[in-house]
């Protein structure tokens, strides 16, 4: 196929998808209002077609990227002949147009999955769910097609913007150049890392999947069916989205840790904040829905939380796409900002309108029994999580706000976020520990005393032990004794539950422990997630409180000492590869005088005919143990003299952050695993239907 044919095929698929999405949005809505099954069937077909056409479009773009159709501008910008095939594929989400297409594609596929999942369920909600999802899909498809065309929409978009941007309206991934470049620019070398495959994909899966619970929430609001049906129906979507938001955070941190070369994994960069905020509100949502399921309370709050999560996800993409906020992640300044703002405003206003119209149906079925109960600890957890999200939001968007109001730009950096979120998260950690100790509904002083005594004793012992081994910083002592407290309470929870089962059902201890978890998947899956979070906290506290570093300019044979490590510099090695020239410092590492291995931090130079496109990347070398990471950066070198300047950092306990995420994933899967009882209910419902028709 020629490059023109490919571009046409891809672009027309997108245009057709846009038309079909708009049609599906209107048709599904109209069908439900007028109870016209033909029209709804037609809307369903349109949704499946959108999924098929966006898939086709993605397929066309990927094959154009692989076969290097440089006449297509996106291909020329994102790939070149030298880079490995896998980076050609990952270029799908490496640039702005491609990542919007990726988003639209995921959403289209998810919408089709929702239709299939619910083909015999939720018939009252479903048309409105489909309608909402189709509106969202149409928004992204419009960004990919007509928003890019100055003659159609460009006029309106360009007005509030700097006029010179109007010419560079972007969006269409299939835009053609008027000549065929011999080679492309290639993916930015900073993005050429395995993180490129996994971080954006997981992040997007999380962001996009959250559209589904939000669409159900809007449909529930619209139809007034405000029992917890929408929550139960979307429970797995919510967990799926949350899991992938968590994984997005994890892989983003790991990538930053090894690629950006400042020795850390989190810098409170606006885009990092943008991925943290929906995670915080989604976490709050996961907890507060339990109160609605059990007690029929917090109905409005849950709707607000799912809306906030969706809006913050869109805001996250807006921040990344629009270039309005300075960030290491920022894509080029683009004209898409006003579109995103308009979409956000529309979503928020329609949500609020529906909410105020339905407020009479949202009365709570119960009241809280006691101030000290599991319910109120969940409430507290929600306040803290949402508070942290808002503090982060405040620090992130304040530069924009202050400039708009006072004309002066004021910003805050990492110290602000650490100072605010440090205590907030500490409170959250303690709450994770306190929560399982408090029964649902009511706790008495006597019970609290009994349940708190042991964990509290353990945390005091931990604090004394830390002071005894020479930890003097109060924040370290507080953080780690809080961690000890939480781990003890969760451990006790498993221990007591197992014992209770052992006594009650006469099971042996192992069987009792296994059955305890499998029969209470949500509760114990949740506790396992909490263990993961606490392990992560160990890693974060260790590496942020106790990082040490040094730097040295070394001749071959010289060494630099940091704590128990001796780093010996053996010389430089320079070698070319297909895509870049690599400069490596060969190092031998000694721990307490014993040789433990070698490391080779690296600098890679990507040259390009255009000097402005030439770039270097820093590949750090890390030696990980359970206690600490030895992290070495080749910060400078002199190839004629053979000297190198090394920056050596010890990051204590970092590996526990990654392990913690692994445990969190395991716990989430346990909590989300299908319950045979639910399946039984489903079989029952099917049989009932079949028999009724017979």
């Amino acid at each position: 196929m020629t490059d023109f044919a490919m571009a046409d095929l891809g672009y027309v698929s997108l245009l057709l998808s846009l038309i079909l999405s708009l049609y599906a949005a209107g048709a599904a809505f109209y069908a439900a209002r007028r109870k016209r099954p033909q029209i709804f069937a037609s809307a369903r077909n349109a949704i499946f077609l959108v999924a098929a056409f966006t898939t086709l479009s993605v397929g066309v773009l990927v094959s154009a990227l692989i076969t290097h159709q440089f006449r297509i501008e996106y291909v020329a910008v994102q790939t070149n002949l030298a880079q490995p095939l896998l980076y050609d594929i990952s270029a799908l989400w490496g640039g702005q147009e491609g990542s919007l297409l990726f988003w639209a594609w995921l959403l289209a596929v998810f919408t089709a999955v929702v239709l299939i999942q619910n083909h015999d369920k939720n018939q009252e909600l479903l048309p409105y769910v489909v309608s909402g999802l189709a509106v969202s899909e149409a928004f992204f498809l419009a960004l990919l097609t007509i928003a890019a065309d100055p003659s159609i929409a460009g006029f309106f978009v360009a007005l509030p913007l700097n006029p010179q941007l109007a010419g560079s309206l972007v969006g269409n991934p299939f835009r053609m150049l008027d000549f065929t470049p011999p080679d492309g620019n290639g993916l930015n070398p900073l993005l050429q890392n395995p993180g490129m495959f996994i971080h954006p994909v997981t992040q997007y899966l999380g962001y996009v999947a959250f559209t589904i619970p939000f669409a159900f929430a809007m449909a529930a609001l619209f139809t007034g069916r405000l029992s917890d049906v929408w929550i139960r129906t979307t429970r797995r979507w919510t967990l799926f989205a949350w899991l992938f938001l968590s994984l997005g955070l994890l892989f983003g941190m790991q990538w930053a840790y090894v690629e950006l070369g400042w020795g850390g994994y989190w810098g409170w960069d606006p885009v990092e904040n943008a991925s943290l905020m929906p995670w915080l509100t989604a976490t709050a949502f996961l907890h507060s829905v339990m109160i609605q399921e059990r007690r029929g309370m917090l109905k409005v709050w849950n709707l607000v939380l799912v809306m906030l999560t969706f809006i913050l996800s869109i805001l996250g993409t807006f921040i990344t796409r629009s270039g309005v906020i300075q960030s290491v992640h920022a894509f080029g300044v683009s004209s898409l900002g006003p579109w995103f703002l308009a979409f956000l405003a529309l979503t928020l206003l329609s949500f609020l309108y529906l909410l105020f119209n339905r407020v009479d149906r949202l009365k709570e079925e119960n009241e809280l029994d006691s101030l000290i109960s599991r319910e109120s600890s969940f409430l507290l957890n929600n306040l803290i999580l949402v508070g942290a999200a808002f503090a982060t939001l405040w620090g992130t968007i304040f530069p924009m706000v202050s400039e708009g109001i006072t004309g002066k730009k004021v910003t805050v950096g990492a110290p602000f976020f650490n100072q605010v979120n440090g205590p907030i998260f500490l409170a959250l950690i303690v709450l994770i520990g306190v929560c399982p100790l408090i029964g649902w509904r009511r706790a008495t002083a006597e019970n609290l005393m009994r349940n708190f005594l042991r964990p509290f004793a353990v945390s005091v012992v931990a604090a004394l032990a830390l002071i005894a081994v020479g930890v003097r910083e109060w924040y370290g002592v507080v953080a780690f004794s809080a961690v000890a407290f939480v781990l003890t309470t969760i451990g006790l929870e498993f221990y007591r539950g197992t014992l209770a089962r052992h006594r009650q059902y006469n099971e042996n201890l192992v069987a009792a422990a296994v059955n305890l978890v499998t029969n209470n998947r949500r509760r114990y899956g949740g506790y396992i997630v909490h263990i993961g979070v606490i392990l992560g906290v160990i890693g974060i506290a260790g590496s942020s409180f106790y990082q040490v570093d040094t730097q040295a300019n070394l001749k071959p044979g010289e060494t630099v000492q940091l704590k128990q490590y001796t780093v010996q510099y053996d010389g430089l090695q320079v070698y070319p590869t297909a895509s870049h020239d690599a400069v490596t410092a060969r190092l031998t590492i000694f721990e307490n005088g014993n040789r433990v291995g070698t490391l080779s931090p690296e600098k890679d130079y990507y040259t390009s005919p255009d000097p402005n496109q030439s770039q270097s990347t820093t590949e750090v070398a890390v030696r990980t143990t359970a206690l600490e990471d030895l992290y070495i950066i080749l910060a400078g070198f002199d190839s004629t003299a053979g000297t190198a300047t090394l920056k050596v950092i010890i990051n204590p306990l970092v590996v526990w952050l990654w392990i913690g995420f692994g445990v969190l994933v395991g716990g989430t899967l346990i909590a989300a695993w299908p319950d045979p009882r639910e399946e039984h209910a489903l079989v029952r419902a099917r049989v009932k239907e079949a028999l009724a028709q017979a």
Partner: protein
Amino acid sequence: MSTIVAPSLERASTIKAGGKLKFVIGGLLILGAIAFVTLNSFQSNAIYYLTLKELDAQRATVINQPVRVNAPLDKSSIQFDDKTLTLKFTLKDGDLVLPVVYTGVVPDTLGQGESVVAEGRLGADGVFQASTLLVKCPSKYESQPAGSSAN
């Protein structure tokens, strides 16, 4: 129905009365605390974000105060001492010139940087001591091939 113990209605009702108020007060206290911490640390950490012109106009007041400066980078001025990891360059906006000194690992993107956001303090000698650098590229992960035009 023999298993059912008579509910202590009195107790339940005393909990309900005034129950809501307790929760509202508790919630407000917590939100107030979070807001207080946020605003408090905001004030102590807020830094002005200035262009070179603004920095020059307020030169007297900002000396030795933490500020962020955003200005175009004069690429020809970049000097890097690989032994001490000292980076020197100048930011240039029209006639205004600001020499900047930074020590540490140099951001990989500096070579393609169009402008730089430097956080640090302006010394009395007129040299800006930067503690962090953020390099802005015209289009960071996007670049237009020469001679391209929209189709």
